[in-house]
């Protein structure tokens, strides 16, 4: 099966990984000699970890390059060519839900919120609320590509809604909500789902992959922010009612 390309360009991948980790390494080494002066055996251990990270990152990027990009683009181009294009919207709903529901970061956040709220917000509620929110926004993102809606028409009202809710939310809810923007933008969304979106935008006539294909990640990042702020407001309203 020599036609399967697995290790092509691995040298290039390694170079870019080393270049990526170099600034952090240089920064640490300078500080190590000038200020930190940690024991040598400890530093050697750290360097072993860095080596592991370099190999892992190279393997990850290579897998994305040979597997996720071509398959995502092919799927996108096939899906973009189907006649019933509205089908892409429920397809986005499914992809968005699946990509988020399994994400470990979302589950960790769920447990943190359950703990911080003294158990009044259950972990599963958080996981399903965020997965549902992301699913909705990926579906919106697909509708945007199919019908050629500019990204700003969705993202600006979304941000304005978030800013409006800032006024009514607790400081802690705000911090958690905005930090959570990243929980759903895991490796599957950034690599695979984005490649599908770019492929779809390339296949539909009159759509530009740069203008219409990108933007999906920002929608996936916006969804948990809104979801958690809404959850926070609901919780607060409930507490108020109890006090009365």
């Amino acid at each position: 099966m020599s036609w399967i390309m697995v290790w092509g360009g691995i040298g290039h991948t390694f170079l870019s990984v080393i270049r990526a980790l170099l600034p952090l390494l240089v920064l640490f080494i300078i500080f190590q000699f000038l200020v930190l002066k940690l024991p040598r055996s400890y530093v050697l251990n750290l360097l072993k970890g860095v080596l592991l990270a370099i190999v892992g990152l190279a393997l990850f990027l290579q897998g994305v390059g040979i597997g996720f990009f071509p398959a995502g683009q092919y799927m996108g181009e096939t899906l973009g060519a189907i006649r019933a294009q509205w089908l892409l919207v429920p397809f986005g709903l499914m992809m968005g839900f699946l990509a988020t529901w399994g994400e470990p970061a979302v589950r960790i956040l769920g447990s943190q919120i359950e703990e911080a709220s003294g158990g009044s917000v259950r972990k599963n509620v958080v996981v399903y609320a965020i997965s549902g929110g992301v699913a909705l926004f990926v579906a919106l993102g697909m509708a945007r590509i199919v019908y050629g809606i500019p990204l700003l028409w969705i993202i600006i009202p979304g941000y304005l809604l978030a800013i409006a809710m800032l006024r009514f939310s607790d400081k802690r809810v705000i911090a958690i909500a905005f930090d959570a923007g990243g929980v759903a933008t895991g490796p599957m969304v950034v690599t695979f789902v984005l490649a599908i979106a770019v492929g779809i935008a390339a296949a539909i006539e009159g759509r530009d992959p740069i203008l219409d294909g990108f933007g999906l990640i920002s929608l996936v990042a916006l969804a948990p922010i809104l979801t958690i702020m809404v959850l926070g407001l609901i919780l607060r309203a409930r507490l108020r009612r109890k006090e009365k």
Partner: protein
Amino acid sequence: MLSAILPLVLAVVILQFAVIRMPSQVFLQFIIGAAMVIGGMVLFLSGVEIGILPMGKALGAELPRRNSLLLVIGIAFMVGFAATVAEPDVIVLTRQVDEVSRGAIAENVLIYAIALGVGLFVTMAMLRILLNINIAYLLAAGYAIIIVLAFFAPPEFVPVAFDSGGVTTGPMAVPIILSLGLGFSSVLAGRSAMSDGFGLIGLASIGPVIAVMILGMVLS
């Protein structure tokens, strides 16, 4: 890691046999690639745990010990910058942008613009903890700037700019930036690590959006 990737891989396998039918070469490479992604992530994350996080913590713990504001600002900026350059999500996004735009928005330029944005906003977040500014004001101001800039930046940069804000919050940058902030606020008197240390990531993901939009305005 497995649970993050498996549901979608299964969905793709089902779709492959039901509707899509990609050429078997593409499909096989997808399966092999998925295994490499999972294995690579496991190795990478343990490497971050063993080697890179302790480095970030060692640097962060140094911050409050020197009583110099300039040093705090300098280190926060450099750590934010260095962590972003090494962030896998950032590398993957910039690569796709480079490819799709056929080099018009080059990978390297975009990475450094994103890293500059994160560095500047991590620095601002540190100053916020120091000066005890309410985070809601900074968030509102940051997003207001983004909304205004979105109307002036060249349209082909806008979606990429918004996506840049989403990818900085990956497995590399988040733990490093968080440990920096938590370490910093825990030593300052009268600050709670809980409500002051958090919010850092939220602020850090505003920076790249602004930076990439400005990059677009400068380039055109």
